[in-house]
């Protein structure tokens, strides 16, 4: 299908071909789904909401609930206040959430709807029932990317809800960043193993990976509660995982409630997981349990077992900045060579950071923020690689170039593993390693000529 993609790279001034990002509101919706009994609300045309729900449903294979202001031409001219007030009244009446998290769309941003004012008016008019909360975040689709939207929504949790009672509690805040429900579950398991009391926000585990129980739960059991979001202001420390996704919320919490923070990379791979575990250990003033040491040992063991296949393995990879930072570091730890690293999200600083990470095995790596999959494909045609990694949209590139492909990031629309198995932590590292070597070996087993096929790899 990509037969039209040529090796000749033409300068493009104004155009995106096969994007490696999407727009802010879907990130806000994903974050809001990680709050218990929260209704994400899209303030715009109903298409936005339908699109985000469909996309999240395809990725998580779970029901995704959200409401919309259902903008019409009238609302686009006269503003969306009436729509939002009606919407809030309907939502509280029929769906009875504890909290509604409103995010904007390009439409309501350009119209210039003043959401805090509308929320205030709704409260005055008695539309918001006693004890219920409405929060908002601005997520203009024409700036940043879906990760920015996630980050903005997390910051809004703090802005609206975190409270400081003046008494610091022996509780650690964890902003997990944009990771899968299974990853959040794994982060919690690690914190529990180390023995730290924590609040994680958002937490989509048990929301978007809910078990089959024969019922439809509009609000599944999981998610951070409003009470927990409030209590975050009394914690003694915040761990913000994934700088792009979590720094804004952590900074806001420091500003508002004087909770100090530590920004870490997502715990993917040995070093980044070490840093996370170490931060947990310091926070809990405990020792790393022997079982966890063993998990680490098993990961290191597996990497060394497979190292002959990993050294100088040439990899093209695209995805979101936080995911890439940690994943590429992990690849470098294995001795692989990141050849080209692409994200659609803008970020000059990130480019510099990636350059440094790659320099250990490949100082010449091509690093580009604000780029797209089409460019990566053209580049690969000129600079052959052994393996491609990225979300589902990259599979056609791998197919066209006849290369093994490992899925990671968002969205994954054609596999199920990401729902169940984490990529973070030492066990997550083992899973990634398995996926990479499986992809390489499956291709060899299928395509090597008879005399070269080997039984033992």
């Amino acid at each position, binding site marked *: 299908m*990509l037969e*039209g993609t040529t090796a000749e790279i033409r300068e493009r001034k*104004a*155009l*995106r*071909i*096969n*994007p490696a*990002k*999407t*727009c*802010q*509101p*879907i990130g806000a919706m994903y974050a809001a789904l990680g709050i218990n009994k929260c209704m994400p*609300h899209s303030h*715009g*045309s*109903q*298409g*936005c*909401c*339908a*699109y*985000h729900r*469909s*996309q999240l*449903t395809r990725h998580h*294979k*779970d*029901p*995704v609930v959200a*409401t*919309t*202001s*259902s*903008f019409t*031409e009238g609302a*686009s001219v006269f503003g969306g206040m009436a729509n939002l007030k*009606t*919407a809030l009244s*309907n939502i509280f*009446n*029929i*769906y*009875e959430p504890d909290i509604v998290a409103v995010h904007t769309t*390009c*439409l309501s941003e*350009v119209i210039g709807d003043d959401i805090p004012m509308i929320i205030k008016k709704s409260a005055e008019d008695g539309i918001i029932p006693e004890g219920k909360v409405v929060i908002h975040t601005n997520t*203009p689709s*024409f*700036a940043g*990317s879906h990760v920015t939207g996630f980050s903005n929504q997390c910051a809004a949790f703090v802005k609206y809800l975190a409270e400081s009672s003046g008494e610091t509690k022996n509780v650690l805040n964890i902003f997990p960043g944009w990771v899968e429900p299974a990853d959040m579950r794994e982060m919690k398991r690690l914190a529990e193993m180390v023995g730290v009391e924590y609040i994680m926000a958002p937490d989509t585990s048990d929301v978007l990976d*809910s078990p*089959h*129980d*024969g*019922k*439809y*739960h*509009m609000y599944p059991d999981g998610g951070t509660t409003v009470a927990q979001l409030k209590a975050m202001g009394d914690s003694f420390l915040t761990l913000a995982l994934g700088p792009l996704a979590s720094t804004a919320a952590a900074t806001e919490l420091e500003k508002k409630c004087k909770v100090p923070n530590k920004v870490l990379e997502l715990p993917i791979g040995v070093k980044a997981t070490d840093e996370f575990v170490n931060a947990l250990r310091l926070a809990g003033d405990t020792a790393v349990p022997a079982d966890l040491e063993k998990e680490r040992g098993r990961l290191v063991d597996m990497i060394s077992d497979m190292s002959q296949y990993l050294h100088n393995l040439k990899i093209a990879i695209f995805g979101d900045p936080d995911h890439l930072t940690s994943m590429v570091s992990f690849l470098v730890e294995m001795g692989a060579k990141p050849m080209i690293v692409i994200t659609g999200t803008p970020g000059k600083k990130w480019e510099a950071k990636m350059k440094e990470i790659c320099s250990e095995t490949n100082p010449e790596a091509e690093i580009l923020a604000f780029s797209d999959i089409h460019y990566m494909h053209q580049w690969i045609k000129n600079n052959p690689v052994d393996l491609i990694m990225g979300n589902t949209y990259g599979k056609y590139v791998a197919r066209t170039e006849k290369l093994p492909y490992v899925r990671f990031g968002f969205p994954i629309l054609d596999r199920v593993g990401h729902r169940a198995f984490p990529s973070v932590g030492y066990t997550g590292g083992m899973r990634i390693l398995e996926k990479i070597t499986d992809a390489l070996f499956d291709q060899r087993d299928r395509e090597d000529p008879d005399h070269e096929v080997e039984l033992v790899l």
Partner: protein
Amino acid sequence: MNSVNTPSSIRVLDERSDQVWTKGSGKEFVCDKKSAAGSVTQRACAFCGSRVVLYPIADALHIVHGPIGCAVYNWDIRGSLSSGSQLNRNSFSTDLAEKEVIFGGEKKLKASLLELINFYQPKAAFVYSTCIVGLIGDDVGAVCKQVTKETGIDCIPVDSPGFKGTKKSGYQAACEAAYKLVGTGDTNGISKYSINLLGEFNIAGEAWMIRKYYEKIGIQVVSTITGDGRVDDLRRCHGAKLNLVQCSGSMTHLSKLLKDDYGIPMERVSFFGFEDTARAIYAAAEHFGDPELMRRAEELVRDEISKYAPKLKEYKKRLKGKKAALYVGGAFKAFSLVLALRSLGMQTVLAGTQTGSAEDYEQLKEICDPGTVIVDDSNPLELAKFVLEKDVDLFIGGVKERPIAFKLGVAFCDHNHERKIPLAGFEGMVHFAEEVANSACSPIWKYAPRRQAKALRLPEPEPTAPLACEGGAA
């Protein structure tokens, strides 16, 4: 907790109460109304409607003028197969940023179009307007005109800002856009027995199956619009002598234009199920009035049915008495589904659509059995309520309905863009029966709590938490 495990626990939004109707209740039914703000509607927007209709035109360039999201969420999601060019499966976007929102995006659009046309040499280009373009007032038409002049490639604006309405208004915009190409091609060599297939999107290759039926009996298919579509076919489709319209919701407007301007008569058809497929083939043969055509049509139908009917019988044995719920985009599909399910011995107990019109619903009411619940523009809570209340065995719907059905322990069949096997025609009916039987009789459902309780003759599980909606009238 808004958990749905007892049907009476759910209320219907007051504003929506007349969009839910039970056959035999005698009350009025309302549809074609804007979704209530704040409802978890399963509906999408005008842009989405335009995009899904035109997307299958495979050798055209489709560029989304707007922020990146609009170009991402509908990127290659529709299983409309193309026998040649795959250009349409790429995602092209102007990726509008703050600067253009303030100063206008016309320059960026023009540059993008020139670059793309130069690069891909498409047969034509469709330029989709999104909400924001509608708002900042870019003159997309003027840009298209300029680029057409400079490159000689027809650039066609699609007036589809999302806020214009539901998918339905997008269908209209798509028809208008497609119509710009109609009448610009050579109609030489078109037979006096010739048709266009409108509203057939070649999901999983269905258009190819249908095309063969007509070709076999001696009727030429000038174009399928838009499945496996080509720009040149659209250009000359006005030379066809009859339009067969399948997805009436999306294509009625185009067929009306073709009728008004070129005098081409239209027939509404469906290729779902034996009865409807046979009817659709006879309709064309009858229209041309040639007894030889009719003879071949009858022969074809006889052959096909004798080939597939025995297989269907096997499935019917397994499916008899099972109950189905369907929630689909357009109403015409719903009619066919009700009939097809009936032919498998199944009863439709819930039927709903996103965008049906009053006329559609009248017809739907006609063909449904008493007691069937009919809903317009529904939401997950309502759907879950009726599925449980009616003790449904099978749900037919799209991407957002699938996990809901599965969570309830109900079988599911995708009858939307994302279906993977052809369900049209005689052979398709067997595929449909097979998929329904596989899902409805899947061994996994023996673990579904509701079935487990029945197997063990246990009382249904009690609600685990007090229900937030209790006290409200169902």
